[in-house]
């Protein structure tokens, strides 16, 4: 057996083997693309088979046989054209023209090859070069547009096509042009074409594994840090980008199950959660059925949301449920504007990624649990600190009360007729009052600590709050100077709590002003903000302490040791309340000495409308594109 014969046999085995492989898969997973592959390799295998049969049966150069062989040969480029159409967007007219042209060439093979071989050869070369070249180019472009294993397989297909066309054209040219003499070239090139096709259309498992490895590694590397990302939306978008990147898809989308409600929530393009019924869209079907779904034509399969799919370049969607230990966490889907070229690889990959995503989500939820435990520990520690500081501050007045009481007791025991110790008694009363104030302050802080998040915010004219504070001081014989705007200043507030803030600031202002000058209170509304200023004429707050006085247990150094009570909770309580109103509080030096405490909260419009309910679901006539919005490039 010569080398050429060996190559011939290899070619025959290769192409017939390929035919068997694609036929087997088409029967297993029928789709337009898989039948087009059968057409391609069926035609080539047919040529090989007939040529061999003619040799064995010594049929010679029967015109009908040559006609059939030429027809089969001419079918190959047409099958390639159809495959191009399956894998990428091909102008409709290309396919429409391709069919009739093939028919003409087929007829020519029967009638003209014998009579005018030159003519046929020229037409055939034109057909192969034109259509085959177009197909090779289109496969090459498709390869560039994809990533990962699909790109590798597509590249192999493009090379195979190019080599196959080259082999045929050289074979024809060999006959056509006498000066061209490349005896074994078509066979050798065809062998390489066959090998390329083999890698592209039916790669063995070990090659696939090797080709998938970098994509998986990439996906894992990009997702490994996700459990530590605190913002769940960001984590979801990261996984989506990693998945889309691994597939070279237009995008990917993750829907997360919501405990206790039949919805899936997605992150839209703006980065917000949007909820849809858990059977909405094709991913919803995968979630409901708990099995992977391949939608080669999403718009046809789910016409209700066709506009959404179109807008997101989601012709094809493959989706797999994200499930762990029977817990349904959500669904992962990847979409592209072309059919999956090698759907079995894509399915394998998406299931793996869904499993990995399940792990990531689990890890995240564990991380969240850990964080909340840590937060609980921190709050326990703060409580401990709080109690310890509180106990410390209660001890001093208690020492005085106890000591003075014992002294009184002793004095009376020694000399019942002795005059009462007026100074000692007033000391005792003063410290007992201080104890009472401290206890009140502590209880306030404690209450706030526990319930600061359950405030009842209602739109209230802030002028009425100031008026109520003014009136109360007026009743005590203190006339505050209160300035308010002519128009209503509506703030969304918890009235008793907010009044507590103003009251506390005014009380401080009076307490720390020794000159007897009264504080001034001013309300102003500007640019959607209400601003309340409480100005005193006291000693002022040292600059370096202006932030710290709002901390828990902090007392400005220049008021420590004064007879005024306080354990440094008043302003802390104020800050907590103001912050619960989405506001800010700070202190500025007042012109001419003293301080101005500034409270700013959002000033709501009087006729503010309610926000949309959270469980909004899209209706069929309002398809929102949000569900699938993800940046295409990862």
């Amino acid at each position, binding site marked *: 057996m010569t080398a050429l014969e060996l190559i011939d046999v290899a070619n025959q085995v290769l192409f017939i083997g390929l035919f068997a492989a694609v036929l087997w898969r088409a029967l297993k997973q029928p789709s337009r693309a898989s039948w087009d592959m059968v057409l391609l390799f069926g035609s080539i295998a047919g040529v090989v088979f007939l040529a061999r049969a003619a040799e064995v049966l010594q049929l010679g150069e029967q015109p009908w046989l040559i006609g059939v062989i030429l027809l089969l040969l001419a079918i190959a480029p047409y099958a390639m054209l159809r495959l191009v159409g399956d894998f990428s967007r091909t102008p409709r007219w290309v396919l429409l023209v391709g069919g009739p042209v093939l028919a003409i060439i087929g007829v020519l093979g029967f009638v003209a090859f014998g009579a005018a071989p030159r003519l046929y050869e020229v037409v055939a070369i034109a057909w192969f070069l034109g259509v085959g070249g177009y197909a090779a180019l289109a496969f090459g472009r498709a390869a560039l547009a994809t990533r990962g294993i699909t790109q590798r397989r597509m590249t192999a297909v493009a090379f195979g096509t190019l080599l196959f066309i080259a082999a045929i054209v050289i074979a024809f040219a060999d006959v056509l042009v006498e000066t061209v003499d490349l005896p074994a070239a078509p066979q050798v090139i065809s062998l390489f074409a066959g090998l390329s096709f083999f890698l592209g259309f039916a790669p063995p498992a070990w090659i696939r594994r090797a080709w998938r490895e970098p994509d998986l590694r990439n996906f894992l590397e990009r997702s490994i840090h996700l459990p530590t990302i605190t913002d769940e939306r960001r984590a979801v978008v990261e996984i989506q980008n990693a998945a889309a990147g691994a597939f070279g898809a237009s995008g990917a989308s993750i829907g997360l199950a919501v405990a206790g409600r039949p919805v899936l929530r997605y992150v839209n393009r703006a980065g917000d959660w949007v909820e849809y019924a858990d059977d909405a869209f094709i991913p919803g079907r995968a979630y409901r059925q708990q099995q992977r779904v391949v939608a080669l034509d999403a718009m046809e399969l789910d016409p209700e949301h066709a506009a959404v799919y179109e807008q997101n370049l989601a012709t094809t969607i493959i989706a797999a449920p994200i499930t762990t230990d029977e817990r349904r966490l959500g669904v992962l889907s990847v979409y592209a504007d072309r059919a999956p070229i090698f759907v079995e690889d894509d399915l394998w990959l998406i299931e793996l990624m869904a499993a990995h995503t399940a792990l990531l989500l689990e890890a995240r939820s564990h991380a969240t649990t850990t964080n909340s435990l840590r937060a609980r520990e921190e709050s326990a520690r703060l409580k401990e600190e709080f109690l310890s500081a509180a106990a*410390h501050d209660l001890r001093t007045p208690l020492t005085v009360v106890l000591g*003075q009481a014992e*002294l009184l007791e002793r004095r009376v025991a020694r000399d019942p007729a002795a005059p009462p110790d007026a100074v000692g008694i007033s*000391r005792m009363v003063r410290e007992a009052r201080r104890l009472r104030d401290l206890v009140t302050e502590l209880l306030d802080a404690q209450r706030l600590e526990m319930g600061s998040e359950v405030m009842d915010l209602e739109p209230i004219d802030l002028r009425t709050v100031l008026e109520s504070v003014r009136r109360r001081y007026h009743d005590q014989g203190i006339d505050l100077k209160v300035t308010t705007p002519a128009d209503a200043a509506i703030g969304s507030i918890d009235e008793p709590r907010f009044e507590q803030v103003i009251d506390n600031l005014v009380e401080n202002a009076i307490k720390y002003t020794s000159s007897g000058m009264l504080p001034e209170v001013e309300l102003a509304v500007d640019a959607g903000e209400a601003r309340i200023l409480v100005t005193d004429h006291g000693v002022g707050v040292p600059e370096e302490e202006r932030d710290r006085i709002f901390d828990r247990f902090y007392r400005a150094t220049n008021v420590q040791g004064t007879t005024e009570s306080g354990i440094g909770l008043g302003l802390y309580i104020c800050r907590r309340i103001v912050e619960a109103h989405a506001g800010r509080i700070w202190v500025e030096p007042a012109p001419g000495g003293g301080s101005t405490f500034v409270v700013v909260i959002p000033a709501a419009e009087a006729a503010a409308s309610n926000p949309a309910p959270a469980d909004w679901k899209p209706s069929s006539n309002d398809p929102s594109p949000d569900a699938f919005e993800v940046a295409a490039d990862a």
Partner: protein
Amino acid sequence: MREITILVVDDEADIRATVSAMLEIEGYDVAEASNGADALHVLEERRPDLILLDMRMPILDGWGFAAELRRRGHRTPIVVMTAARDAAHWAAEIAAAAFVAKPFGFEDLIAAVERVSPPAA
């Protein structure tokens, strides 16, 4: 017989007054100071036999005062009086003779003072 003089150092005026009254009714001679620096002045004037010392005070705290006292060569015993939970620890830090933790009663204070004060000459 010389009276025993006790220096009461505390930034809280009411505490000073109360402690002084307790000591006076027991027959001690009492001097007062509102912080460590103040106490150093009073110290040279009155030469106390015992110092009742609060620890957290403005200007010069208990630690600073104790260090300066020793540096000047005085061996006057100190009784720490503090509201802190680690009163014993603080007392050890400045090598105090004893401590009383606020809130202390009459008996606690006098017991500590009697245990530490030198026998009246």
